[in-house]
């Protein structure tokens, strides 16, 4: 993988590491099977990215739309296979417009440079990673809880705004009670976002009390509903992309799996 990131440097590719590898670098995950990248969606940069992939003899993987900026800007995922000498090939998934994020430039300004044996990598901020992880996969919400705890641990004195962010990204009642017992006095009622059940639990911690079962039950249901809503939004995000891919497949316009990326640059 060192070769891939060296190629990015040579081609001056503007990228951000997202997904599971980013979660691992922050300590919020233990394992991921692939590499997810956010590539700045400009013509020059997308071409530089493909050139870098060409340098490392990457091949197109499955369900990949034409590698033009049009499809990049529509928020599609592009899937590649990176050969690695004597090792399993690496799967690389790239996007120019990942869901729930703002412009690349702003995320790049918030990003961190992290030294690794693969080089100094550009990694999305924890806050951006939390937004990216609000997917249609329930397992990602455990990673979000860990990212929130890790971020709070980095802050010596989290502000009420940061605490509201933490509460909004907590999805299990046991995580909420752990958060409130540690930081309760910093959490303002606004963090409940008008939800009476959550407000009741926050109020109890602010008063130095342990909330009753009668208070915790509705709060747990409120968290479940919040997570279900995000899961559904995450699922819906992909519906137009799936429709695009079906149409491309019907017209035989998906990139053929196994195609060397270098060939895309000749077109």
């Amino acid at each position: 993988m060192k070769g891939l990131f060296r190629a990015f440097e040579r081609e001056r590719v503007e990228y951000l590491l997202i997904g599971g590898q980013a979660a691992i670098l922050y300590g919020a995950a233990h394992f991921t099977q692939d590499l997810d990248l956010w590539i700045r969606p400009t013509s020059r940069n997308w071409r530089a990215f493909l050139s870098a992939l060409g340098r490392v003899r990457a091949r197109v993987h499955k369900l990949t739309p034409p590698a033009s900026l049009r499809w990049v800007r529509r928020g599609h995922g592009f899937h590649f296979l990176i050969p690695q000498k004597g090792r399993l090939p690496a799967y690389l998934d790239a996007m120019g417009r990942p869901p729930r994020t703002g412009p690349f430039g702003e995320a790049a300004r918030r990003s961190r440079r992290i030294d690794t044996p693969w080089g100094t990598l550009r990694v999305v901020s924890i806050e951006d990673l939390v937004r990216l992880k609000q997917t249609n996969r329930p397992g990602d919400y455990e990673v979000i809880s860990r990212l929130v705890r890790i971020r709070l641990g980095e802050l010596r004195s989290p502000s009420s705004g940061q605490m509201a962010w933490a509460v909004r990204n907590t999805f299990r009642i046991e995580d909420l009670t752990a958060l409130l017992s540690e930081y309760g006095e910093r959490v303002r009622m606004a963090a409940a976002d008008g939800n009476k059940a959550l407000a009741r639990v926050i109020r109890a911690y602010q008063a130095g009390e342990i909330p009753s079962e009668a208070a915790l039950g509705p709060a747990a249901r409120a968290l479940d509903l919040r997570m279900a809503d995000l899961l559904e939004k995450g699922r819906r995000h992909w519906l137009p992309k799936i429709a695009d891919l079906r149409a491309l497949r019907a017209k035989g316009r998906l990139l053929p799996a196994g195609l060397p990326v270098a060939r895309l640059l000749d077109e």
Partner: protein
Amino acid sequence: MAARDRSRRPPLPRILEELETEPVRQDWLLLTPGQRLVRAWRMRRLLKDPEALHDERSLPRL
């Protein structure tokens, strides 16, 4: 391209399934980010069918 058949896809090996869901251990947080990256990447060797796993998790279902 044929629609993918989920029933044929092997599950994540148990050890990796546990790693995904277990709480983050303190010793994991004490490693440098680079050390975590290397160890996590090495665990990919435990995968019997990395392609099936990738496709199951990362490709949309058409």
